[in-house]
Protein backbone atom coordinates (compact mmCIF):
# COMPACT_ATOMS: atom_id res chain seq x y z
CA UNK A 1 0.00 0.00 0.00
CA UNK A 2 1.25 3.46 -0.88
CA UNK A 3 0.95 6.45 1.38
CA UNK A 4 -2.60 7.47 2.15
CA UNK A 5 -3.30 11.05 1.12
CA UNK A 6 -4.58 13.56 3.62
CA UNK A 7 -8.02 14.12 2.18
CA UNK A 8 -8.88 10.43 2.22
CA UNK A 9 -8.39 10.07 5.97
CA UNK A 10 -10.33 13.26 6.63
CA UNK A 11 -13.51 12.98 8.62
CA UNK A 12 -16.49 12.13 6.45
CA UNK A 13 -18.60 15.10 5.47
CA UNK A 14 -22.19 15.32 6.65
CA UNK A 15 -25.03 14.76 4.20
CA UNK A 16 -25.97 18.44 4.54
CA UNK A 17 -22.45 19.44 3.61
CA UNK A 18 -22.51 17.13 0.58
CA UNK A 19 -25.85 18.63 -0.48
CA UNK A 20 -24.34 22.10 -0.23
CA UNK A 21 -21.44 20.96 -2.38
CA UNK A 22 -23.90 19.57 -4.94
CA UNK A 23 -25.57 22.97 -4.92
CA UNK A 24 -22.20 24.69 -5.50
CA UNK A 25 -21.53 22.26 -8.35
CA UNK A 26 -24.90 23.17 -9.92
CA UNK A 27 -24.13 26.86 -9.72
CA UNK A 28 -20.74 26.28 -11.33
CA UNK A 29 -22.39 24.25 -14.10
CA UNK A 30 -24.78 27.12 -14.89
CA UNK A 31 -22.00 29.72 -14.81
CA UNK A 32 -19.53 27.75 -16.87
CA UNK A 33 -22.11 26.76 -19.49
CA UNK A 34 -23.44 30.30 -19.80
CA UNK A 35 -19.89 31.53 -20.27
CA UNK A 36 -19.15 28.77 -22.80
CA UNK A 37 -22.25 29.57 -24.86
CA UNK A 38 -22.76 25.91 -25.72
CA UNK A 39 -22.90 22.55 -23.99
CA UNK A 40 -25.32 20.31 -22.13
CA UNK A 41 -27.35 21.47 -19.13
CA UNK A 42 -29.90 18.92 -18.02
CA UNK A 43 -27.64 15.88 -17.55
CA UNK A 44 -24.92 17.64 -15.55
CA UNK A 45 -27.47 19.29 -13.24
CA UNK A 46 -29.18 15.96 -12.64
CA UNK A 47 -25.83 14.33 -11.86
CA UNK A 48 -24.62 16.92 -9.34
CA UNK A 49 -25.63 14.88 -6.29
CA UNK A 50 -23.92 11.76 -7.64
CA UNK A 51 -20.71 13.70 -8.32
CA UNK A 52 -20.77 15.36 -4.90
CA UNK A 53 -21.07 11.89 -3.36
CA UNK A 54 -18.35 10.44 -5.60
CA UNK A 55 -15.70 13.12 -5.23
CA UNK A 56 -16.37 14.00 -1.57
CA UNK A 57 -17.19 10.63 -0.04
CA UNK A 58 -16.99 7.53 -2.22
CA UNK A 59 -13.78 7.84 -4.25
CA UNK A 60 -10.37 7.12 -2.84
CA UNK A 61 -8.44 9.87 -4.62
CA UNK A 62 -5.95 12.66 -4.11
CA UNK A 63 -6.25 15.83 -6.20
CA UNK A 64 -2.64 16.72 -5.37
CA UNK A 65 -1.35 13.34 -6.55
CA UNK A 66 -3.41 12.31 -9.55
CA UNK A 67 -1.23 9.28 -10.30
CA UNK A 68 -1.54 7.87 -6.77
CA UNK A 69 -1.25 4.14 -7.31
CA UNK A 70 -3.93 3.23 -4.79
CA UNK A 71 -6.58 5.55 -6.17
CA UNK A 72 -10.00 4.42 -7.31
CA UNK A 73 -10.79 4.97 -10.97
CA UNK A 74 -13.66 7.25 -11.93
CA UNK A 75 -14.75 7.24 -15.58
CA UNK A 76 -17.37 9.34 -17.29
CA UNK A 77 -18.79 7.41 -20.22
CA UNK A 78 -21.30 10.02 -21.39
CA UNK A 79 -18.62 12.65 -21.95
CA UNK A 80 -21.12 15.40 -22.80
CA UNK A 81 -21.97 15.59 -19.09
CA UNK A 82 -18.41 16.59 -18.24
CA UNK A 83 -19.34 20.06 -16.91
CA UNK A 84 -20.47 18.29 -13.72
CA UNK A 85 -17.18 16.42 -13.47
CA UNK A 86 -15.14 19.57 -14.06
CA UNK A 87 -17.14 21.39 -11.37
CA UNK A 88 -16.65 18.52 -8.91
CA UNK A 89 -12.94 18.32 -9.70
CA UNK A 90 -12.47 22.07 -9.23
CA UNK A 91 -14.40 21.89 -5.97
CA UNK A 92 -12.07 19.03 -4.87
CA UNK A 93 -8.96 21.02 -5.68
CA UNK A 94 -7.77 19.46 -8.94
CA UNK A 95 -7.57 22.95 -10.44
CA UNK A 96 -8.65 26.49 -9.54
CA UNK A 97 -12.38 27.15 -9.78
CA UNK A 98 -11.80 30.15 -12.01
CA UNK A 99 -10.54 27.76 -14.69
CA UNK A 100 -14.15 26.56 -15.05
CA UNK A 101 -14.72 29.76 -17.00
CA UNK A 102 -12.43 28.40 -19.75
CA UNK A 103 -14.82 25.50 -20.47
CA UNK A 104 -15.03 24.84 -24.23
CA UNK A 105 -12.68 27.77 -25.01
CA UNK A 106 -9.69 27.65 -27.31
CA UNK A 107 -6.57 26.50 -25.48
CA UNK A 108 -8.49 25.28 -22.43
CA UNK A 109 -7.73 22.08 -20.56
CA UNK A 110 -11.49 21.80 -20.12
CA UNK A 111 -12.41 20.51 -23.56
CA UNK A 112 -16.05 20.27 -24.60
CA UNK A 113 -15.75 16.53 -24.05
CA UNK A 114 -13.19 15.16 -21.58
CA UNK A 115 -9.65 14.35 -22.70
CA UNK A 116 -7.30 12.48 -20.43
CA UNK A 117 -4.22 13.97 -22.07
CA UNK A 118 -5.43 17.52 -21.54
CA UNK A 119 -6.45 17.56 -17.89
CA UNK A 120 -4.62 15.66 -15.12
CA UNK A 121 -7.13 13.75 -13.02
CA UNK A 122 -9.26 12.59 -15.92
CA UNK A 123 -8.84 8.84 -16.44
CA UNK A 124 -10.27 8.54 -19.95
CA UNK A 125 -11.24 10.35 -23.10
CA UNK A 126 -14.92 10.13 -23.94
CA UNK A 127 -17.75 11.73 -25.82
CA UNK A 128 -18.71 9.24 -28.52
CA UNK A 129 -21.12 7.18 -26.46
CA UNK A 130 -20.93 3.62 -25.27
CA UNK A 131 -17.23 3.04 -24.59
CA UNK A 132 -16.85 3.92 -20.91
CA UNK A 133 -18.03 0.62 -19.50
CA UNK A 134 -15.52 -1.27 -21.64
CA UNK A 135 -12.76 1.02 -20.48
CA UNK A 136 -13.83 0.44 -16.87
CA UNK A 137 -13.70 -3.30 -17.49
CA UNK A 138 -10.20 -2.86 -18.95
CA UNK A 139 -8.98 -1.03 -15.84
CA UNK A 140 -10.53 -3.74 -13.67
CA UNK A 141 -9.06 -6.54 -15.79
CA UNK A 142 -5.59 -5.03 -15.38
CA UNK A 143 -6.16 -4.72 -11.63
CA UNK A 144 -7.21 -8.37 -11.52
CA UNK A 145 -4.03 -9.41 -13.37
CA UNK A 146 -1.98 -7.30 -10.94
CA UNK A 147 -3.89 -8.77 -7.96
CA UNK A 148 -5.09 -5.35 -6.78
CA UNK A 149 -8.28 -6.33 -5.01
CA UNK A 150 -8.65 -3.16 -2.95
CA UNK A 151 -9.27 -0.67 -5.76
CA UNK A 152 -12.63 0.15 -7.31
CA UNK A 153 -13.68 1.36 -10.73
CA UNK A 154 -16.75 3.58 -10.99
CA UNK A 155 -18.21 4.48 -14.36
CA UNK A 156 -21.08 6.89 -14.90
CA UNK A 157 -23.14 6.29 -18.03
CA UNK A 158 -26.16 8.00 -19.47
CA UNK A 159 -29.41 6.14 -20.14
CA UNK A 160 -29.81 7.23 -23.79
CA UNK A 161 -26.26 5.96 -24.14
CA UNK A 162 -27.51 2.44 -23.45
CA UNK A 163 -28.79 2.41 -27.06
CA UNK A 164 -25.16 1.71 -28.02
CA UNK A 165 -24.20 -1.91 -28.69
CA UNK A 166 -20.74 -1.37 -27.24
CA UNK A 167 -22.36 -1.06 -23.79
CA UNK A 168 -23.88 -4.52 -23.97
CA UNK A 169 -20.66 -6.05 -25.29
CA UNK A 170 -19.03 -4.61 -22.18
CA UNK A 171 -21.88 -5.78 -19.94
CA UNK A 172 -21.36 -9.38 -21.11
CA UNK A 173 -17.59 -9.09 -20.74
CA UNK A 174 -17.59 -7.59 -17.23
CA UNK A 175 -19.95 -10.28 -16.06
CA UNK A 176 -18.05 -13.13 -17.74
CA UNK A 177 -14.85 -12.22 -15.90
CA UNK A 178 -16.74 -11.25 -12.73
CA UNK A 179 -15.01 -7.89 -12.51
CA UNK A 180 -16.94 -7.16 -9.35
CA UNK A 181 -14.93 -4.09 -8.49
CA UNK A 182 -16.65 -2.37 -11.42
CA UNK A 183 -19.69 -0.31 -10.44
CA UNK A 184 -21.73 1.19 -13.26
CA UNK A 185 -23.92 4.14 -12.29
CA UNK A 186 -26.60 4.65 -14.92
CA UNK A 187 -28.04 8.16 -14.92
CA UNK A 188 -31.67 7.21 -15.48
CA UNK A 189 -33.05 10.66 -16.29
CA UNK A 190 -35.32 9.37 -19.08
CA UNK A 191 -34.28 11.95 -21.68
CA UNK A 192 -32.09 12.00 -24.74
CA UNK A 193 -31.72 14.48 -27.58
CA UNK A 194 -34.77 13.51 -29.64
CA UNK A 195 -37.13 13.05 -26.71
CA UNK A 196 -37.79 10.68 -23.83
CA UNK A 197 -35.80 7.45 -23.79
CA UNK A 198 -38.97 5.39 -23.99
CA UNK A 199 -40.02 7.32 -27.10
CA UNK A 200 -36.66 7.26 -28.88
CA UNK A 201 -35.71 3.67 -28.09
CA UNK A 202 -37.35 2.01 -25.10
CA UNK A 203 -34.94 0.80 -22.42
CA UNK A 204 -37.38 -0.89 -20.10
CA UNK A 205 -37.27 -3.43 -18.57
CA UNK A 206 -33.88 -1.87 -17.75
CA UNK A 207 -33.35 -3.72 -14.47
CA UNK A 208 -34.26 -6.98 -16.19
CA UNK A 209 -31.77 -6.28 -18.98
CA UNK A 210 -28.85 -5.77 -16.62
CA UNK A 211 -29.84 -8.72 -14.46
CA UNK A 212 -30.09 -11.01 -17.46
CA UNK A 213 -26.57 -9.89 -18.44
CA UNK A 214 -25.33 -11.16 -15.07
CA UNK A 215 -25.28 -7.95 -13.04
CA UNK A 216 -26.52 -7.18 -9.57
CA UNK A 217 -28.86 -4.19 -9.83
CA UNK A 218 -29.54 -1.56 -7.18
CA UNK A 219 -32.14 1.12 -7.91
CA UNK A 220 -31.90 4.42 -6.05
CA UNK A 221 -33.00 8.02 -6.03
CA UNK A 222 -29.97 9.48 -7.76
CA UNK A 223 -30.67 12.93 -6.39
CA UNK A 224 -30.31 11.64 -2.83
CA UNK A 225 -26.66 11.93 -1.85
CA UNK A 226 -27.00 9.49 1.00
CA UNK A 227 -28.63 6.88 -1.25
CA UNK A 228 -25.74 7.18 -3.70
CA UNK A 229 -23.19 6.65 -0.93
CA UNK A 230 -25.09 3.69 0.50
CA UNK A 231 -25.53 2.05 -2.91
CA UNK A 232 -21.82 2.34 -3.68
CA UNK A 233 -20.98 0.89 -0.26
CA UNK A 234 -23.22 -2.05 -1.02
CA UNK A 235 -21.71 -2.38 -4.48
CA UNK A 236 -18.25 -2.72 -2.95
CA UNK A 237 -19.54 -5.49 -0.71
CA UNK A 238 -21.01 -7.53 -3.56
CA UNK A 239 -18.32 -9.82 -4.93
CA UNK A 240 -20.21 -12.43 -6.91
CA UNK A 241 -21.25 -10.00 -9.67
CA UNK A 242 -20.49 -6.54 -11.01
CA UNK A 243 -23.03 -4.00 -9.83
CA UNK A 244 -25.21 -1.64 -11.83
CA UNK A 245 -26.76 1.22 -9.88
CA UNK A 246 -29.75 2.56 -11.75
CA UNK A 247 -29.81 6.09 -10.40
CA UNK A 248 -33.16 7.71 -11.08
CA UNK A 249 -32.49 11.40 -11.48
CA UNK A 250 -34.46 14.45 -12.52
CA UNK A 251 -32.90 16.06 -15.60
CA UNK A 252 -32.17 19.73 -14.93
CA UNK A 253 -32.58 19.11 -11.18
CA UNK A 254 -32.51 22.29 -9.12
CA UNK A 255 -33.59 24.64 -11.90
CA UNK A 256 -37.36 24.61 -12.03
CA UNK A 257 -37.79 25.60 -15.66
CA UNK A 258 -35.39 22.89 -16.86
CA UNK A 259 -36.58 19.95 -14.81
CA UNK A 260 -37.98 17.06 -16.86
CA UNK A 261 -37.68 19.04 -20.13
CA UNK A 262 -35.64 17.17 -22.74
CA UNK A 263 -35.11 20.41 -24.69
CA UNK A 264 -32.44 21.28 -22.13
CA UNK A 265 -30.48 18.11 -22.83
CA UNK A 266 -28.07 19.73 -25.23
CA UNK A 267 -28.48 23.45 -24.54
CA UNK A 268 -26.81 25.96 -22.23
CA UNK A 269 -28.59 28.80 -20.46
CA UNK A 270 -28.60 32.13 -22.27
CA UNK A 271 -28.57 30.79 -25.81
CA UNK A 272 -32.22 30.88 -26.86
CA UNK A 273 -35.73 31.65 -25.69
CA UNK A 274 -37.57 28.49 -24.72
CA UNK A 275 -41.26 28.06 -23.90
CA UNK A 276 -41.73 27.84 -20.15
CA UNK A 277 -38.30 29.35 -19.43
CA UNK A 278 -37.33 32.94 -18.67
CA UNK A 279 -36.09 35.12 -21.58
CA UNK A 280 -32.62 33.99 -22.60
CA UNK A 281 -30.84 36.91 -21.02
CA UNK A 282 -32.42 36.13 -17.65
CA UNK A 283 -32.04 32.35 -17.71
CA UNK A 284 -28.73 32.18 -15.86
CA UNK A 285 -29.80 34.78 -13.31
CA UNK A 286 -33.07 32.99 -12.55
CA UNK A 287 -31.33 29.61 -12.32
CA UNK A 288 -28.67 30.92 -9.96
CA UNK A 289 -31.25 32.71 -7.80
CA UNK A 290 -33.20 29.53 -7.51
CA UNK A 291 -30.12 27.49 -6.62
CA UNK A 292 -29.09 30.07 -4.00
CA UNK A 293 -32.49 29.92 -2.39
CA UNK A 294 -32.33 26.10 -2.42
CA UNK A 295 -28.96 26.43 -0.75
CA UNK A 296 -30.58 28.47 1.99
CA UNK A 297 -33.11 25.71 2.53
CA UNK A 298 -30.40 23.06 2.84
CA UNK A 299 -28.65 25.23 5.40
CA UNK A 300 -31.81 25.84 7.42
CA UNK A 301 -32.83 22.22 7.36
CA UNK A 302 -29.30 20.96 8.01
CA UNK A 303 -29.34 20.31 11.72
CA UNK A 304 -25.88 21.12 13.02
CA UNK A 305 -22.96 20.80 10.71
CA UNK A 306 -22.68 24.22 9.06
Amino acid sequence: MGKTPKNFTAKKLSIEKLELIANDIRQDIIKSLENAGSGHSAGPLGLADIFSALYFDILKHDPSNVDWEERDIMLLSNGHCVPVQYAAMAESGYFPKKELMTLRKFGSRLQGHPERKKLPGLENTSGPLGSGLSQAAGFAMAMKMDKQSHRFVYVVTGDGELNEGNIWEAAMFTSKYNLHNVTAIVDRNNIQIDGTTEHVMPLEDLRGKWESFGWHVIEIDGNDVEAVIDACAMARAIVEKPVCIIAHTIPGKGVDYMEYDYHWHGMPVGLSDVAGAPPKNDQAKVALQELRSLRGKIRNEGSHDE
Partner: protein
Amino acid sequence: MSNLHLLDMKDWGSEPTRKGFGRGLVKAGDADEQVVALCADLTSSVQIAPFAEKYPERFVEVGVAEQNLVTVASGMAAMGKIPFAASYAAFNPGRNWEQIKTTVALNDVPVKVVGAHAGLYTGPDGATHQMLEDIALMRAMPNMVVVVPGDSVEAEKATIAMARDKRPGYLRLARDNTPVMTTDKTPFEIGKAYVFSPGQDITIIATGTMTSVALEAADKLFHDGIDAEVIHCPTIKPLDNATILASVKRTKKVITVEEAQIAGGLGGAVTELLSEHLPVPVMRMGVKDAYGQSGTPEELFQHYGLTAKHIVIQAHHLVDQK
Protein backbone atom coordinates in the same frame (compact mmCIF):
# COMPACT_ATOMS: atom_id res chain seq x y z
CA MET B 1 22.11 -6.11 -50.52
CA SER B 2 24.55 -7.94 -48.35
CA ASN B 3 24.45 -5.45 -45.46
CA LEU B 4 20.71 -6.13 -45.12
CA HIS B 5 21.31 -9.90 -44.91
CA LEU B 6 18.54 -10.67 -47.38
CA LEU B 7 18.07 -14.14 -48.87
CA ASP B 8 18.72 -14.73 -52.55
CA MET B 9 15.46 -15.17 -54.39
CA LYS B 10 16.17 -18.87 -54.96
CA ASP B 11 16.48 -19.36 -51.18
CA TRP B 12 13.24 -17.59 -50.21
CA GLY B 13 11.09 -19.41 -47.72
CA SER B 14 7.32 -19.34 -47.40
CA GLU B 15 5.18 -18.55 -44.36
CA PRO B 16 2.24 -16.26 -43.47
CA THR B 17 3.14 -12.96 -41.79
CA ARG B 18 0.67 -13.79 -39.00
CA LYS B 19 2.93 -16.68 -37.95
CA GLY B 20 5.77 -14.25 -37.36
CA PHE B 21 3.43 -12.09 -35.31
CA GLY B 22 2.57 -15.12 -33.17
CA ARG B 23 6.25 -15.79 -32.45
CA GLY B 24 6.99 -12.12 -31.88
CA LEU B 25 4.16 -11.77 -29.39
CA VAL B 26 5.51 -14.62 -27.26
CA LYS B 27 8.97 -13.03 -27.31
CA ALA B 28 7.54 -9.62 -26.45
CA GLY B 29 5.68 -11.30 -23.59
CA ASP B 30 8.88 -13.00 -22.41
CA ALA B 31 10.66 -9.65 -22.36
CA ASP B 32 7.96 -7.61 -20.63
CA GLU B 33 5.31 -8.99 -18.31
CA GLN B 34 3.08 -5.99 -19.03
CA VAL B 35 2.45 -7.32 -22.54
CA VAL B 36 -1.08 -8.77 -22.73
CA ALA B 37 -3.18 -10.09 -25.60
CA LEU B 38 -6.87 -9.73 -26.37
CA CYS B 39 -8.69 -11.57 -29.10
CA ALA B 40 -12.18 -11.57 -30.61
CA ASP B 41 -12.92 -15.27 -31.10
CA LEU B 42 -10.12 -15.85 -33.63
CA THR B 43 -7.31 -16.96 -31.36
CA SER B 44 -5.64 -19.57 -33.58
CA SER B 45 -6.45 -17.83 -36.81
CA VAL B 46 -4.73 -14.57 -35.87
CA GLN B 47 -1.93 -16.46 -34.10
CA ILE B 48 -2.61 -15.24 -30.57
CA ALA B 49 -2.73 -18.91 -29.55
CA PRO B 50 0.99 -19.42 -28.81
CA PHE B 51 0.92 -16.46 -26.40
CA ALA B 52 -2.39 -17.57 -24.86
CA GLU B 53 -0.97 -21.04 -24.23
CA LYS B 54 2.21 -19.76 -22.63
CA TYR B 55 0.61 -16.90 -20.69
CA PRO B 56 -3.05 -17.82 -20.10
CA GLU B 57 -3.28 -15.31 -17.24
CA ARG B 58 -2.30 -12.51 -19.60
CA PHE B 59 -4.72 -13.49 -22.37
CA VAL B 60 -8.25 -12.11 -22.59
CA GLU B 61 -10.94 -13.67 -24.78
CA VAL B 62 -13.38 -10.91 -25.69
CA GLY B 63 -15.77 -12.81 -27.96
CA VAL B 64 -17.06 -11.51 -31.28
CA ALA B 65 -17.13 -7.91 -30.08
CA GLU B 66 -14.55 -5.75 -31.77
CA GLN B 67 -15.72 -2.48 -30.24
CA ASN B 68 -15.30 -3.99 -26.80
CA LEU B 69 -11.95 -5.50 -27.87
CA VAL B 70 -10.19 -2.18 -28.30
CA THR B 71 -12.01 -0.26 -25.55
CA VAL B 72 -11.16 -2.91 -22.94
CA ALA B 73 -7.59 -2.73 -24.27
CA SER B 74 -7.71 1.05 -23.81
CA GLY B 75 -8.55 0.67 -20.12
CA MET B 76 -5.83 -1.94 -19.64
CA ALA B 77 -3.26 0.27 -21.35
CA ALA B 78 -4.20 3.19 -19.09
CA MET B 79 -3.28 0.86 -16.20
CA GLY B 80 0.20 0.26 -17.63
CA LYS B 81 -0.42 -2.81 -19.77
CA ILE B 82 0.77 -3.12 -23.37
CA PRO B 83 -2.23 -4.74 -25.03
CA PHE B 84 -2.20 -6.39 -28.45
CA ALA B 85 -5.84 -6.39 -29.57
CA ALA B 86 -6.27 -8.74 -32.49
CA SER B 87 -8.96 -9.71 -34.94
CA TYR B 88 -9.44 -9.61 -38.69
CA ALA B 89 -8.63 -6.26 -40.24
CA ALA B 90 -12.10 -6.17 -41.79
CA PHE B 91 -13.50 -5.67 -38.28
CA ASN B 92 -10.47 -4.31 -36.43
CA PRO B 93 -10.14 -1.44 -37.47
CA GLY B 94 -12.97 -1.93 -39.98
CA ARG B 95 -15.78 -1.93 -37.42
CA ASN B 96 -14.26 -0.17 -34.40
CA TRP B 97 -12.42 2.76 -35.95
CA GLU B 98 -14.14 5.38 -33.81
CA GLN B 99 -13.35 3.51 -30.62
CA ILE B 100 -9.71 3.26 -31.72
CA LYS B 101 -9.61 6.97 -32.47
CA THR B 102 -11.24 8.15 -29.24
CA THR B 103 -10.10 5.66 -26.63
CA VAL B 104 -6.70 4.67 -28.05
CA ALA B 105 -5.20 7.30 -30.36
CA LEU B 106 -6.65 10.56 -28.99
CA ASN B 107 -6.42 9.06 -25.51
CA ASP B 108 -2.80 8.23 -26.43
CA VAL B 109 -2.44 4.83 -24.77
CA PRO B 110 -0.12 2.14 -26.19
CA VAL B 111 -2.70 -0.29 -27.55
CA LYS B 112 -1.48 -2.28 -30.56
CA VAL B 113 -4.32 -2.96 -32.97
CA VAL B 114 -3.60 -6.11 -34.95
CA GLY B 115 -5.50 -6.51 -38.22
CA ALA B 116 -5.04 -10.02 -39.59
CA HIS B 117 -6.26 -11.44 -42.88
CA ALA B 118 -5.91 -8.04 -44.52
CA GLY B 119 -5.71 -7.59 -48.27
CA LEU B 120 -6.33 -9.91 -51.21
CA TYR B 121 -4.74 -13.05 -49.73
CA THR B 122 -8.07 -13.56 -47.94
CA GLY B 123 -9.15 -14.80 -51.40
CA PRO B 124 -12.25 -17.01 -51.40
CA ASP B 125 -13.85 -15.16 -48.44
CA GLY B 126 -14.70 -12.32 -50.82
CA ALA B 127 -15.04 -8.56 -50.59
CA THR B 128 -16.50 -8.38 -47.07
CA HIS B 129 -13.36 -9.95 -45.62
CA GLN B 130 -10.72 -8.51 -47.94
CA MET B 131 -9.80 -5.41 -45.96
CA LEU B 132 -8.32 -2.91 -48.39
CA GLU B 133 -9.09 0.40 -46.66
CA ASP B 134 -7.27 -0.21 -43.38
CA ILE B 135 -4.02 1.55 -44.29
CA ALA B 136 -5.89 4.69 -45.30
CA LEU B 137 -8.11 4.56 -42.21
CA MET B 138 -5.27 4.15 -39.77
CA ARG B 139 -2.86 6.50 -41.50
CA ALA B 140 -5.37 9.35 -41.16
CA MET B 141 -5.36 8.96 -37.39
CA PRO B 142 -3.02 11.27 -35.43
CA ASN B 143 -0.68 9.52 -32.92
CA MET B 144 -1.05 6.19 -34.75
CA VAL B 145 1.93 4.20 -36.05
CA VAL B 146 1.12 2.00 -39.07
CA VAL B 147 3.26 -1.06 -39.82
CA VAL B 148 2.86 -3.53 -42.69
CA PRO B 149 5.56 -6.22 -42.46
CA GLY B 150 7.00 -7.66 -45.67
CA ASP B 151 7.34 -11.23 -44.46
CA SER B 152 6.93 -13.40 -41.38
CA VAL B 153 10.48 -12.82 -40.13
CA GLU B 154 9.97 -9.09 -40.28
CA ALA B 155 6.51 -9.43 -38.70
CA GLU B 156 8.17 -11.06 -35.69
CA LYS B 157 10.61 -8.16 -35.34
CA ALA B 158 7.88 -5.59 -35.92
CA THR B 159 5.78 -7.11 -33.13
CA ILE B 160 8.67 -6.95 -30.68
CA ALA B 161 9.48 -3.37 -31.75
CA MET B 162 5.86 -2.28 -31.37
CA ALA B 163 5.67 -3.75 -27.88
CA ARG B 164 8.63 -1.54 -26.92
CA ASP B 165 7.20 1.51 -28.65
CA LYS B 166 5.15 3.83 -26.43
CA ARG B 167 2.75 4.91 -29.17
CA PRO B 168 -0.56 3.44 -30.31
CA GLY B 169 0.08 1.18 -33.29
CA TYR B 170 -1.55 -0.74 -36.11
CA LEU B 171 -0.03 -3.97 -37.42
CA ARG B 172 -1.33 -5.32 -40.73
CA LEU B 173 -1.05 -9.06 -41.38
CA ALA B 174 -1.92 -11.43 -44.22
CA ARG B 175 -3.39 -14.92 -44.10
CA ASP B 176 -1.63 -17.03 -46.73
CA ASN B 177 1.92 -18.18 -47.18
CA THR B 178 4.02 -15.44 -48.72
CA PRO B 179 7.74 -15.37 -49.56
CA VAL B 180 10.25 -14.96 -46.74
CA MET B 181 13.00 -12.64 -48.00
CA THR B 182 14.60 -11.44 -44.79
CA THR B 183 16.63 -13.14 -42.08
CA ASP B 184 17.12 -12.72 -38.36
CA LYS B 185 19.94 -10.32 -39.17
CA THR B 186 17.96 -8.05 -41.49
CA PRO B 187 17.43 -4.73 -39.71
CA PHE B 188 13.96 -3.52 -38.77
CA GLU B 189 13.14 -0.26 -37.09
CA ILE B 190 9.75 1.45 -36.87
CA GLY B 191 9.79 4.44 -39.23
CA LYS B 192 12.54 3.12 -41.51
CA ALA B 193 12.31 2.08 -45.14
CA TYR B 194 15.04 -0.08 -46.63
CA VAL B 195 16.60 -0.23 -50.09
CA PHE B 196 16.23 -3.96 -50.73
CA SER B 197 17.64 -3.70 -54.24
CA PRO B 198 19.64 -0.66 -55.40
CA GLY B 199 19.12 0.78 -58.88
CA GLN B 200 19.32 3.96 -60.94
CA ASP B 201 16.45 4.14 -63.41
CA ILE B 202 13.25 3.99 -61.36
CA THR B 203 12.20 3.65 -57.71
CA ILE B 204 9.67 0.94 -56.87
CA ILE B 205 8.30 1.44 -53.36
CA ALA B 206 6.41 -1.54 -51.98
CA THR B 207 4.89 -2.49 -48.67
CA GLY B 208 3.84 -5.74 -47.02
CA THR B 209 3.53 -8.83 -49.15
CA MET B 210 4.05 -6.81 -52.36
CA THR B 211 7.74 -6.25 -51.69
CA SER B 212 8.66 -9.77 -52.82
CA VAL B 213 6.64 -9.18 -56.00
CA ALA B 214 8.48 -5.90 -56.58
CA LEU B 215 11.81 -7.70 -56.19
CA GLU B 216 10.74 -10.28 -58.78
CA ALA B 217 9.77 -7.43 -61.09
CA ALA B 218 13.13 -5.71 -60.57
CA ASP B 219 14.87 -8.97 -61.48
CA LYS B 220 12.91 -9.21 -64.74
CA LEU B 221 13.48 -5.50 -65.47
CA PHE B 222 17.23 -5.98 -65.04
CA HIS B 223 17.15 -8.45 -67.91
CA ASP B 224 15.25 -5.84 -69.95
CA GLY B 225 18.01 -3.33 -69.26
CA ILE B 226 16.14 -1.32 -66.64
CA ASP B 227 17.94 -0.87 -63.32
CA ALA B 228 15.13 -0.53 -60.78
CA GLU B 229 15.63 0.36 -57.13
CA VAL B 230 13.25 -1.44 -54.76
CA ILE B 231 12.45 0.24 -51.47
CA HIS B 232 10.71 -1.89 -48.90
CA CYS B 233 8.49 0.40 -46.82
CA PRO B 234 7.11 -1.55 -43.84
CA THR B 235 6.21 1.58 -41.87
CA ILE B 236 3.57 3.62 -43.65
CA LYS B 237 3.38 6.06 -40.76
CA PRO B 238 5.67 7.75 -39.89
CA LEU B 239 6.90 7.52 -43.48
CA ASP B 240 10.67 7.39 -44.02
CA ASN B 241 10.80 10.60 -46.07
CA ALA B 242 14.60 10.72 -46.20
CA THR B 243 15.09 7.28 -47.76
CA ILE B 244 12.34 7.85 -50.32
CA LEU B 245 13.47 11.35 -51.30
CA ALA B 246 17.14 10.29 -51.59
CA SER B 247 16.19 7.54 -54.01
CA VAL B 248 13.71 9.55 -56.07
CA LYS B 249 16.19 12.43 -56.40
CA ARG B 250 18.32 10.03 -58.44
CA THR B 251 15.68 8.07 -60.35
CA LYS B 252 12.97 10.74 -60.78
CA LYS B 253 10.38 8.04 -61.49
CA VAL B 254 8.28 6.15 -58.97
CA ILE B 255 5.96 3.19 -58.74
CA THR B 256 4.19 2.35 -55.48
CA VAL B 257 2.80 -1.15 -54.90
CA GLU B 258 0.39 -2.35 -52.22
CA GLU B 259 -2.48 -4.84 -51.91
CA ALA B 260 -4.76 -2.11 -50.60
CA GLN B 261 -6.67 0.93 -51.83
CA ILE B 262 -4.21 3.32 -53.44
CA ALA B 263 -6.36 6.21 -52.16
CA GLY B 264 -4.89 7.00 -48.78
CA GLY B 265 -2.62 3.96 -48.74
CA LEU B 266 1.10 3.76 -49.44
CA GLY B 267 0.41 5.35 -52.84
CA GLY B 268 -1.38 8.20 -51.14
CA ALA B 269 1.41 8.68 -48.61
CA VAL B 270 4.19 8.69 -51.20
CA THR B 271 2.42 11.03 -53.63
CA GLU B 272 1.64 13.44 -50.81
CA LEU B 273 5.32 13.52 -49.90
CA LEU B 274 6.59 13.86 -53.46
CA SER B 275 4.05 16.45 -54.60
CA GLU B 276 5.27 18.75 -51.84
CA HIS B 277 8.99 18.06 -51.99
CA LEU B 278 9.93 16.49 -55.30
CA PRO B 279 7.21 16.39 -57.95
CA VAL B 280 7.97 13.54 -60.38
CA PRO B 281 5.81 11.05 -62.31
CA VAL B 282 4.33 8.44 -59.94
CA MET B 283 2.38 5.32 -60.86
CA ARG B 284 0.33 3.98 -57.94
CA MET B 285 -0.33 0.25 -58.13
CA GLY B 286 -2.91 -1.30 -55.85
CA VAL B 287 -6.65 -1.63 -55.74
CA LYS B 288 -8.22 1.37 -57.43
CA ASP B 289 -11.53 2.39 -55.92
CA ALA B 290 -12.95 -1.12 -56.16
CA TYR B 291 -13.93 -3.90 -53.78
CA GLY B 292 -12.40 -7.32 -53.76
CA GLN B 293 -14.23 -10.53 -54.66
CA SER B 294 -13.99 -14.27 -54.21
CA GLY B 295 -11.22 -16.10 -56.01
CA THR B 296 -7.79 -17.54 -55.44
CA PRO B 297 -5.14 -14.97 -54.51
CA GLU B 298 -3.47 -15.68 -57.88
CA GLU B 299 -6.68 -14.89 -59.74
CA LEU B 300 -7.21 -11.76 -57.69
CA PHE B 301 -3.66 -10.41 -58.08
CA GLN B 302 -4.00 -11.03 -61.82
CA HIS B 303 -7.39 -9.30 -61.94
CA TYR B 304 -6.31 -6.23 -59.97
CA GLY B 305 -3.05 -5.92 -61.89
CA LEU B 306 -0.67 -6.68 -59.05
CA THR B 307 1.73 -9.33 -60.41
CA ALA B 308 5.42 -8.89 -61.18
CA LYS B 309 4.49 -8.77 -64.86
CA HIS B 310 2.16 -5.83 -64.25
CA ILE B 311 4.91 -3.97 -62.40
CA VAL B 312 7.31 -4.62 -65.27
CA ILE B 313 4.84 -3.17 -67.78
CA GLN B 314 4.28 -0.06 -65.66
CA ALA B 315 8.02 0.41 -65.19
CA HIS B 316 8.53 0.27 -68.95
CA HIS B 317 5.80 2.87 -69.40
CA LEU B 318 7.53 5.26 -67.03
CA VAL B 319 11.13 4.67 -68.10
CA ASP B 320 10.46 4.47 -71.85
CA GLN B 321 8.35 7.66 -71.72
CA LYS B 322 11.38 9.91 -72.00
